[in-house]
């Protein structure tokens, strides 16, 4: 065990744990965040995606030691149900989910990408999302929601 300082959603947390612990379990179990979700633990599905300094990162395969001192954003860092972030509002407006389990990871992946490429084409967006799986197959509405979100981004 060792002392680890984590900067999550603008707050610093000091934790005593095995530095090899995957970031996902620290976010979920120590910081009790519901956004990042366990889907595979293999980096194959994207349900655990968080944003670390602008990059969409699979938190299930990143040891916590490698993100010390870096700025980590989870879904909770964007907004809450009462005060949703525009990307969350777009998903609500388009009713873009079945069960909703994958949506946090998809929002984080899309936000990181669109922050960099706000005027991305549909093909570029699809390419950016292709590693995120949705088993309910809500893909068409997810793409509509992201199109809505994109329209309000400053280009």
């Amino acid at each position, binding site marked *: *065990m060792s002392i680890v300082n984590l900067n999550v959603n603008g707050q610093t947390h000091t934790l005593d744990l095995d530095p090899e612990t995957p970031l996902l379990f620290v976010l979920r179990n120590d910081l009790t965040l*519901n956004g990042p979700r*366990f889907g595979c633990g293999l980096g194959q599905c994207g349900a655990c995606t968080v944003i670390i300094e602008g990059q969409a990162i699979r938190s299930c395969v990143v040891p916590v030691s490698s993100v010390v001192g870096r700025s980590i954003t989870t879904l909770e860092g964007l907004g809450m149900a009462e005060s*949703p972030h525009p990307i969350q509002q777009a998903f609500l407006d388009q009713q873009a989910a079945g069960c909703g*389990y994958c949506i946090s990871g998809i929002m984080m992946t899309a936000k990181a990408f669109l922050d960099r490429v706000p005027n991305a084409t549909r093909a570029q967006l699809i390419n950016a999302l292709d590693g995120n*799986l949705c088993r*309910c197959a809500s893909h068409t509405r997810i793409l509509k929601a992201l199109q809505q979100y994109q329209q309000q981004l400053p280009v």
Partner: protein
Amino acid sequence: MSIEQGVRTTFLGVSPSFSRRSLIKSSGMLIVGFSLGELAKAQETGARFSTQSDIPIDQLDSYLAIGNDEDVTVFTGRIDMGTGNRTCFAQMVADELDVALDRISLVCGDTALTPDGGKTTASDAISTGGQPLRVTAAAARKKLLELGAEHLGVQIEQLAVRDGIVSVTGSLSRQVSYGELIGNQRFDIRLEVDRITLSGPLLKVPDGVSLKTVDEYRHVRQSVARIDLPDRMITGTFCQNVRVTGMLHGRCIRPPSVGSNLLSVDEGLVRDIPGFVQLVVQGNFVGVVCEREEQAIQAQKVLEPTWSDGTGLPGSERAYRDIRTAAPDTRTTDPTQTLSHGDVDVALMDAAKVLTATYEYPWNAHTMLGPTCAVADVREDGATIWSGTQWPRITQKDLAFLLDLPIENVRVIWVEESGSYGRLAAADAAADAALLSRAVERPVRVQWTRLEEHAWAPHQPPLAVDVRAGLNADNTIVAWDVESWTSTPHDVGRGGGLLAMRLVGRDPGPWSRPTLGASALNSPYPVPNLRSVNHTVEPLLRACYMRSPGGLQATFFNESFIDELASAAGVDPVAFRLRQMSLEPDGRSIEVLQAAAAAVNWDPRPSPKPVSDSVLVIGRGVARSETSVTVAEVEVDRSTGIVRVIRLTAALDCGLIVNPDGLTNQVEQAVLQGMSRALMEEVTFDNSKITSVDWITHPIMKFSDVPTVQVVLLDRPDEAPQGAGEPGTTQLPAAIGNAIFDATGVRIRRAPFTPERVRTALAQA
């Protein structure tokens, strides 16, 4: 389409006078927005329990309560696995009760709080699950009018109700609210049960009570936003996020092969892992419990017990052959599963053309995106389990059996997991967590791994079919002769349905499930001579129905073979179907096929298209079942065998549409999931174990596979509402297979249509 916002998502306990309400309060479950922190408090007060008889299915108060604050709480044994049925229930109750939609909150699938609602499967949540809610709301409204008349000193006929306010017509200042009339009090009205189904009770509409008619609906038939989506998408109210004070983390270690027995296990391998709490071994059930999740994962990795060789599997390729030659004691040919009329043999001899074919559909896996997860707190005198079970009362019964506890001492609380499509009829993680929690005497969360979910979840059995049909000279079908082989699951709810029960050696009981179902066995079109024989074989793997069980597989062979007949007759596939349907016309089925054809501007011509030299060829295919139709347009790369779906059009008649946008959403998803199954999904196994174990070895569709999706809904406000999850997905393998045939002239009679299979078929053609 506009979305009406505003149904509140809060679960609110209001009345200390109700035992169930006081349970909610005293156990800390005054849940606002489903705060998961509050769930933990429920734990600290100790479990409270109830049996089915404590929440009688024939009492109005079991389903509905109105608070002093005018809030309406609806209690249903049904669960909402992400299809939006809760929202539809709220709409239906709002209309029957005449209350504002945002006054309604729902409690779902808690065995201590909700009446038995049976199982949430078979796309019948709206039709069967909604029925008792409509009836109780209407009966409550009648009682409230009676109370209102008394209170206001007028006749009932002089009263009007809107948004929970009863007022005197023409004198609106004379009014009284529902809360003032009955707030925090019981209705004490007994309702008559019409019949009890596996999908819960259906209630009789009491004398003097009338259900609203279509022209009186204010909320039903509106596109109301799903009440569960803010919680699911933003708050994350999943079972995976249930955190209970003092909770430990458990993981299980599974046998290497089907039928392996545990020989030895060395606790020394895990004892020194930091946070290690206990190794739990019971029969072939092996689990580890640690303080932290990553510690449990490490213990799971390093434990490596010794196992005997398994009983073996035939390998995926032999599975179809083996299902046909299964030992007689594992095979039933139930007489009720043989359909017959006319004289098939004579008709086939006299037919102008006879076609024969063999179709095969593989084992399918639900592959929930979040592997199943449960939290259990088992104490000496009782147990509380949080699970995404689709059948809370059966999970309660199973766990009581497994833990040797009286059923009334087991409380199952449904919390949404990721979409399960039938898989959580067997809530496996709940049993794992229960065994581990009992051993360590603390609450335990068990999160299945990806490999467990892909390989150890129960799967949808395959179907093998030999089919023969004869055409008359006028190109109508004169004979339909089918022999099929399939498997159906072991009973759940009798012990043995859950993986942990098998592993600890609880006898699964005799395998005695009924077969595929007559509707799947029957000819999809009226034919003068029919023979359909179905053999049902004990499943090779642990089995559990998956969205449209039997229906999707049977429609694959029915609608592909109909297409073969149309092609042999040289007739346009839509015209061929309409001609055959006209023998015993069903207006709704015919209209929905015509609507689908119109929506895609269907070009009437026989399939396949004339042979082309291009590498990329395009084709279209149609498939239907009952009142659902799908048209697929595909592009096939003849060099690689890659099939790209360009456009999918689904036309459905689901009767009355409770929530148009919700239904459209559900159909869009069902269609794409069906496409994914048709193109790439198959459970594979070798001679000892399942080999499709993750998203690489068992891929599903990605964003880059998404075609244009078009949904056409036929509005039938005067017909009973029907579900859409299954009807939306049933046609996809047949529609896509027919489109591949149209494009290439090659018929592929086994799904999925992987590039390798398509390439091989094209090369052999």
